[in-house]
């Protein structure tokens, strides 16, 4: 990791350490005002805007920190996805909490011209913090091609949530008025959006897994049964190693994808990056959550114990922006349609970027 990324990681980490308290986490349905203000004032919510200077590797660091802290904030949605969509359309980032639609396969929003602007009709499923946000940034179709649109009202909202209690609200739009300045043509597809979301969710999953590993090691070392710490038992040791291995696989997949998706390599390998990251994170989540709960025993299944902040997120995030199956299927279709002899060149294509120089520097996992 470069010095700049390490600095960003330190910043995010110290903000969450101080402001992402137990109380802030307790009610995921509202965005904790104090925490959000600090994130906003520090510029993290607008990191991806042209003036914020944050590229994909920066946003991956941010998403990682969100997962490590189990922070109940739409930071990934605003800084990682909504800002990127807006920048693609040349639109400014509005004030206040701004979330993104997730390009759920069932989503459809149609823009039609009307005097002085547009009218939007359609539905957006399971929008993160859809009710709490002042605006939702989404992709929409129109006679003039795909557009990015900023929606600040809706006709109806069906509240929903994920396992961690994070809001996932469905928005219905019927002839909702959209000013001309709130929509712009883009060449971003729904698949592009899903791919970006998938990589950033995978990064948050890597952060959550890092935390689960640390908690599980601490629990195994601290709790005694049969007169010995749990960590003295081989069966328990092997659980710890399995968690570490899957966390390491996820971390590597995310880091490599962050570089390859930044666009420094040719077509093909970029697609493998985010898809492979989400497929890896999803596979890892089942192992990590099951084994961590097994080591923690009954106490880990309670509301009182902090483990659930992370495992409930992993259970939800593994399916958001496309499940492991979805992305594995996409990779497989591609591979089966291609030349069998070209599979290895594709797997072994350099991830690109200047990752070589990052060697030997402090890592995300190195200072937990």
């Amino acid at each position, binding site marked *: 990791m470069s010095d700049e990324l390490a600095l960003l990681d330190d910043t995010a980490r110290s903000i969450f350490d101080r402001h992402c308290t137990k109380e802030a986490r307790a009610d995921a349905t509202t965005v904790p005002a104090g925490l959000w203000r600090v994130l906003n004032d520090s510029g993290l919510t607008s990191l991806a805007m042209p003036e914020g200077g944050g590229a994909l590797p920066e946003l991956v660091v941010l998403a990682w920190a969100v997962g490590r802290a189990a922070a109940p904030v739409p930071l990934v949605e605003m800084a990682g996805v909504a800002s990127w969509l807006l920048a693609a359309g040349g639109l400014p980032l509005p004030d206040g909490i701004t979330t993104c639609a997730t390009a759920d396969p069932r989503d459809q929003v149609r823009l039609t011209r009307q005097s002085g602007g547009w009218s939007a009709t359609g539905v957006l499923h399971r929008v993160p913090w859809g009710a709490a946000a002042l605006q939702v940034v989404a992709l929409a179709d129109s006679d003039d091609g795909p557009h990015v649109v900023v929606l600040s009202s809706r006709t109806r909202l069906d509240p929903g949530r994920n396992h961690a209690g994070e809001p996932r609200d469905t928005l219905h739009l019927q002839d909702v008025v959209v000013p001309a300045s709130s929509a712009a043509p883009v060449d971003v597809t729904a698949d592009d959006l899903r791919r970006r979301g998938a990589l950033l969710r995978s990064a948050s999953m890597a952060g959550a897994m890092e935390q689960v590993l640390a908690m599980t090691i601490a629990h195994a070392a601290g709790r005694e049964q049969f007169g010995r710490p749990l960590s003295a038992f081989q069966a328990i040791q092997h659980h*710890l190693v399995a968690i570490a291995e899957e966390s390491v696989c996820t971390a590597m997949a995310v880091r490599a994808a962050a570089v390859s998706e930044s666009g420094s390599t040719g077509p093909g390998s970029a697609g493998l990056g985010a898809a492979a990251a989400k497929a890896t994170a999803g596979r890892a989540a089942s192992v990590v959550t099951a084994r961590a709960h097994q080591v923690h025993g009954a106490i880990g299944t309670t509301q009182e114990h902090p483990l659930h902040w992370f495992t409930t997120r992993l259970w939800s995030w593994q399916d958001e922006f496309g499940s492991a199956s979805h992305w*594995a299927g996409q990779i497989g279709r591609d591979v089966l349609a291609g030349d069998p002899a070209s599979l290895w060149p594709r797997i072994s294509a350099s991830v690109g970027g200047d990752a070589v120089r990052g060697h030997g520097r402090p890592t995300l996992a190195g200072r937990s």
Partner: protein
Amino acid sequence: MIDFQPSSLLPHEEELRVEVREFVAESFPFGRYLPQLGINAEASPEFSRRLGERGWLGMVIPEEYGGPGRTAVERFVVVEELLVAGAPISAHWVGDRQTAPGLLSYGSEEQKRRFLPAIVKGAYFFCLGLSEPESGSDLASVRTRATRTDGGWLVNGLKTWTSGAHYADFMVALVRTSPLGDGKHAGLSQLIIDMRATGIATSPIRSLNGFHHFNEVLLENVFVPDEMVLGEVGAGWHQITSELAYERSGPDRFLTTFPVLQYFLAFRGGTGLGPDAERQIGRLVARYWVLRNLSLSVARSLDSGQVPAVEAALVKDVGTVFEQEVVDVLRELTEAEQDPDGDLYDQTLAEATITAPTFTLRGGTNEVLRTVAAKYLLRTAKGSS
């Protein structure tokens, strides 16, 4: 606590890859050649010498000892291309992967001058005298004994599971040079034993497919001169464990069954296999991509002077378990009785099926690896709290 950074190949490394890729494509034409599977491959001294002519053996050996003085990553590139092509790599394998780094770290000047140029040319092949009938996972319990004699040592004992002892020129053996005392890790030494010396009897142990890979090697009053002690007398345990990062994390720990996937795609693949097959294949490809990046990251760390021992252990555990998973997944997708005498895909799958149990045993069982890794996790967690 665990450090893996992604890494890309540099332009000169990419050029090397192209060179190797062209060489293997010509030597082992895709779809028409029965690929060998990883280090279970047959030994072909002739092929090994051809690699030597190209400068692809003993690559990390510096020029002063006759080597090309290349890096761990450059060796990584050559090895992964050979494994993907299913090349017969066994003859030179131990010397290239194990003995060369060991000699570079601990060998005397005389040993380096004698052995390293020969490894580079593919002129000397090595085997490892580690396991014994009563010493498997618990390697430090070896009983083969070396006792002092005039000008050297007399070695007595029985080594087993010795890959390639039947064609190797030398064995690097772990032996007890002083009686079992305070700790079992003390008093062990590494000796370089000439396989043509008097008192050595090698007999084959046939694998379940009838293949001759392993041997039993009986050593009776075998004389080993003092100058053939590798490193320090009594430091053998430290020497072999400090070299494990080289052994554990290489492409041979996740690519063994890659030729099976390639031939599945070539002989049974296509676009009509349906969504389940697509997902299964996609999962395998994603895992290969991750494992390769992990393995490359370890090679890069070695080049920067680090000893990523635990990272290497994790890669070996995940990688070898995955090599077995690949076989299971492809067998299920094949949906036919396995036929060891069928087409090239059938034969490759059959070979993978019956050699799969060895993947998680060779070079130390995965259970032992996990215990080593867990101790490290617990130790570093304690240190940082």
